[in-house]
């Protein structure tokens, strides 16, 4: 029988399938961060249970840590306590922890692939919804809650009901200046933020194949914003080449042997899916969100909605509230919207290729005087080092951006990087929820290139017309 990648990985990880019960699924990798784990470790202590496979569990601190001087203690006492708690928990249970002084540290979804911990055919979980990122490697990666974190720590398994499968096929060639971020925003715009609920999505088609691994990670990262349980791309040569030589790729086996093993996970030709969604790459334009949910998105040349053109009272009220929160009016052209803050980073767009893209646009330009702060926050310390080796940091600082240490930073503003009430931000992150980047802050999600263009002009503009220097 022909199988898709989801079915293959699922079938290979079933520990126990009893009728009337959820399936017990084996977990190959468990990533842990400081925010969603303390109560899980506490639960183990209270019940006298042990971490079953510390060797398959890897921790890092990313949400709470400062992006400024790392040698100073964390000022916020609660953040400091949470970071210290993770270190203690890992020390006590023999879990490897890449703490913020480790040159391998960074946002959990960036360092997993970077270290070669993420591999095709694996099941991966983390107490974090953007775990879907790892699906770019052909791994089945689920975000889980803290009770499930405790369950995985204790049993190395997760209870799951099988999801339906959806193929999202993007054929064709992307226009110049159009990126992976625009693909995924366009998909969410098309199917809606609950369009993927109950599904695992496989992204297929020539436009997805043409993406780099970084681009595929951006697409899979935001699968959760479409409501899906996971998002994957079948592994291919690009996947394997990305992984070659990385720290946690088994050194005792020949790489050809590993490749052959990994290649088997790819969906069989002609495999079936429950649903198919199709997009043409040529139709995708640079995207900008206008509202308070990632599905409230349009193109750079688009407009905010006109309320009486919307169907149904709920849609009208939701759009009305969003426009009000965002301080925008009906039918406003996104091209005219002025911003005062910029954030480049996050597990969506904080990888080296994102920074290269952004630097290309920034080179030789200056951040507009209307911008109060423009941050570039690399996704990991390795990304930071690589960018510095390529001189990207200088391009950014010469243009007037701030260059920071890695971490989640203003993606969710748990540390000191945050918007003030009424600030309007061009952000490369993944959520434009009310208050996400700071209470009263207004977030517009865009690609890195679009964020830099907006920083230079002080307003959104079409990066396809950019004057590169």
């Amino acid at each position, binding site marked *: 029988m022909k199988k898709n990648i989801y079915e293959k990985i699922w079938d290979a990880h079933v*520990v*126990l399938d009893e009728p*009337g*019960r*959820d399936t*017990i699924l*084996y977990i190959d990798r468990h990533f842990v961060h400081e*925010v*969603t784990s*303390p*109560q899980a470790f*506490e*639960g183990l202590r209270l*019940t006298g*249970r042990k971490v*079953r496979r510390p060797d398959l569990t890897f921790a890092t601190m990313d*949400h*709470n840590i400062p992006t400024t001087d790392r040698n100073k203690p964390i000022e*916020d006492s*609660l*953040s400091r*306590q*949470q970071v210290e*708690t993770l270190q203690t928990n890992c020390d006590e249970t023999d879990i490897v922890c890449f703490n913020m002084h480790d040159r391998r540290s960074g946002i959990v979804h960036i360092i997993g692939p970077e270290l070669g911990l993420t591999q095709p055919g694996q099941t991966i979980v983390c*107490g*974090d*919804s953007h775990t879907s990122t790892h699906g770019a490697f052909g791994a089945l990666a689920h*975000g*889980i*809650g*803290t*009770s*499930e974190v*405790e*369950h995985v720590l*204790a*049993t*190395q*398994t997760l*209870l799951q*009901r099988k999801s339906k499968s959806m193929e999202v096929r993007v054929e064709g060639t992307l226009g110049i200046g159009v990126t992976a971020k625009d693909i995924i925003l366009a998909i969410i715009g098309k199917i809606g*933020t*609950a369009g993927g*609920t*109950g599904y695992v999505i496989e992204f297929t088609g020539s436009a997805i194949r043409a993406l780099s691994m970084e681009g595929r990670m951006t697409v899979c990262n935001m699968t959760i914003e479409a*409501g899906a*349980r996971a998002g994957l791309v079948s592994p291919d040569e690009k996947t394997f080449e990305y992984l070659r030589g990385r720290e946690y790729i088994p050194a005792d086996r020949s790489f050809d042997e590993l490749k052959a093993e990994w290649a088997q996970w790819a969906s069989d030709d002609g495999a079936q899916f429950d649903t198919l969604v199709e997009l043409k790459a040529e139709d995708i334009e640079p995207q900008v969100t206008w509202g308070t*949910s990632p599905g409230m998105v349009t193109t750079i040349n688009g407009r905010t909605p006109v309320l009486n053109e919307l169907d149904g009272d*709920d849609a009208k009220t*939701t759009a009305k*509230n969003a426009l009000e929160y965002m301080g925008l009016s009906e039918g406003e052209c996104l091209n005219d919207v002025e911003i005062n803050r910029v954030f480049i980073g996050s597990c969506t767009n904080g990888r080296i290729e994102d920074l290269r893209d952004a630097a290309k646009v920034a080179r030789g330009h200056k951040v507009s005087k209307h911008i109060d702060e423009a941050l570039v926050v690399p996704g990991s310390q390795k990304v930071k080092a690589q960018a510095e080796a390529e001189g990207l940091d200088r391009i950014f600082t010469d243009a007037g951006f701030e260059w920071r240490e890695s971490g989640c930073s203003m993606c*969710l*503003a*748990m540390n000191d990087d945050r918007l003030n009430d009424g600030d309007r931000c061009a952000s490369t992150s993944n*959520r434009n*929820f*009310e*208050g*996400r980047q700071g*209470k009263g802050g207004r977030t517009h999600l865009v690609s890195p290139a679009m964020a830099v263009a907006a920083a230079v002009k002080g307003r959104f503009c079409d990066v396809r017309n950019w004057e590169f220097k």
Partner: protein
Amino acid sequence: MVPFNKLAGIVAPLEALHVDTDQIIPKQFLKRIERTGYEDMLFYDWRYASDGMVPNPDFELNAPRYQGASILLTKDNFGCGSSREHAPWALNDYGFRSIIAPSFADIFYNNCFNNGMLPIVLDSATVERLFTEVRASEGYTLSIDIEAQTVTTPSGEAIPFEVDPFLRDRLLNGWDQIGLTLRHEDAITAYENARR
């Protein structure tokens, strides 16, 4: 976990689509390392008028008639966004044991069961009708019977709902899920050995 069989309680309406977990509990409260004590932080940005603790009179849940509510009535895609279990913790600490909506986000839905809470999916038309009924009569209550899988209105109408039998049994028995899985430790070990 405490077994959960029946619930009768006041219903509070939250008329919004796509309520995300950042709205249910904002990030500044995720820095705590405890599992309880989140009641005052629920819907924080909506619930309080200023950054202090002054209740926002325009937020419907603050109305005196909804105090002590244990059932939350809301709209599509409730609990979307992050996987933070602080969201069900905050709802639970506030007193909500059940949430009724036309649909829920996946991770949130699972997280509820792991905390002995019951999310109930009813069709949009029924939810709309319940909104009208709740607002029409102060002190409106619903009775939920998990075993029978019904929500009963004050007029005696029993509305059936679907729930996965395994999830239902977990609530009814208050099973500790980790304990249940560990009963199959042999199967886990066998799986690990077979893959070596």
